[in-house]
């Protein structure tokens, strides 16, 4: 069983959990068969974009199996572009992460356009955008609906867009939307292990556009491994979902 995990967090969380350092992540990867992990900074997501990206770059440095996403914040488009320019030339950083619910800026707003345009035309690296079917974090209105992300994908056909969490509990609608765009991939990590969702993703998007993500260190790695092993997939499909699709999308 070979795995590439495209959805791994580094940092701390505001619920009862012991801090997870890089050694812990490497140990879990070794025990669970994860060959490579692409990580994002929880500090950057929740508070300090630049500080978090820097912390992540230092954490993954020297570890061949660890890669990073540069986090961008729609409230700070110019600074976000500076972060992209700083990190995406580094081969350890293989994509960009955006979390619309945490920064409360929809991905399809004009202020985000220069970020997506830069990624599409210059860096040609994927963006992982958090998607969810409702407002989160006590926000009054949703900012991460799948159709908002699809809007970005439609206006930037050369940009590889990954819908993180596959819309969460609303994954069925997410898949319906994603099916219309050949430049959208999904990862299925969430706390909702609906027993038909991985098969449905492969049926609607094809076996090449579904990626394994665990949500570690916020989530339990074994929950998603249990899901992908139990999903009704052919062995070729499972190998693509667990490993090859991520290798192709990220070039790792």
């Amino acid at each position, binding site marked *: 069983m070979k795995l590439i995990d495209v959805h791994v967090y580094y940092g701390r969380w505001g*619920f*009862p959990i*012991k801090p997870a350092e890089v050694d812990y992540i490497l140990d879990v990867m070794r025990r669970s068969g994860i060959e490579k992990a692409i990580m994002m900074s929880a500090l950057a997501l929740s508070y300090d974009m630049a500080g978090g990206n820097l912390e992540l770059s230092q954490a993954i440095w020297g570890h061949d199996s660890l890669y990073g996403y540069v986090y961008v914040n729609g409230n700070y488009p110019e600074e976000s572009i500076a972060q992209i320019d700083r990190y995406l030339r580094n081969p350890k950083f293989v994509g960009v992460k955006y979390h619309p619910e945490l920064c409360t800026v929809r991905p399809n707003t004009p202020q985000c356009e220069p970020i997506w345009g830069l990624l599409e035309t210059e860096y040609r690296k994927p963006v992982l955008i958090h998607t969810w079917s409702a407002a989160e974090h006590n926000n009054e209105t949703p900012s991460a609906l799948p159709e908002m992300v699809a809007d970005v994908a439609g206006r930037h056909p050369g940009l590889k867009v990954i819908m993180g969490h596959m819309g969460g509990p609303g994954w*069925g609608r997410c898949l319906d939307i994603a099916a219309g765009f050949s430049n959208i991939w999904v990862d299925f990590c969430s706390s909702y292990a609906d027993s*038909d969702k991985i098969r449905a993703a492969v049926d609607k998007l094809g076996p090449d556009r579904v990626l394994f993500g665990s949500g570690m260190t916020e989530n339990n790695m*074994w929950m998603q*491994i*249990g899901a992908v092993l*139990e999903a009704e997939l052919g062995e070729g499909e499972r190998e693509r979902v667990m490993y090859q699709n991520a290798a192709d999308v990220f070039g790792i």
Partner: protein
Amino acid sequence: MAVNIIDVNTVFGLWPRRPVDISIDSLLGLMKRHGVSRACSVSARGIFYDATMGNDETHSVSARHPEILPAATLNFAAYLGWEDEMRLRLDQGFRVFRFFPSVQEWSICGKAFRRFVDEISDYPSTLLVVPAAEGMLNIADILGGVPNPVIITSFRYTHLSEAIEAMLAHTNLYVETHQINSPDFLHVLADHVGLDRVIYGSNAPLSYMGSALLPILNSEITEAQKQAVLGGNLEHLLEANAQ
């Protein structure tokens, strides 16, 4: 040592909100595949349509399949006849009652449910299974301290702190595992309330059974603790029932 796995949270029947196979055959197949010896299960007919018809179905299925431990349900929005339905199921040997307030549009804060709690207190060996969506504070206020064991299902790590506080305040409260999903939730619960208050459940076949099992099987707790969480704790409650 083979682990005796008992699943406190399963369902069977049809699921009108997703095209997913939750037939009893599907559930039994998953149990066999994952080595689950027994599963507490409730008919989805009782959730979505009619509690009495669903409980009849659950009773019938458990008679045909002894590995299915029957869970009854009551609908306090439908209301009429719930007292007779409760007594019928107790007489039939049901020792687990499960509730689905959000699907049926009622609340455990309502008067009818509170009266149910008063009545079921006379049957202290009956287990009550309630969804965390009703609110940890409500669950603690309404069900904390009753003589019955109460198992709280379907919450994520974001509610773990409140679950711990509720369990610290009331020793009859237990938690079911399938959705907690943080990497070290078992360790956190062990440190704060003890793993004898933690009970494995999967929500299968609606959810992947393996997604609920692997986090426990691969956790770094002792084998004895795994056995307790995966079946021993629930078995102990059910044996107490039998007595």
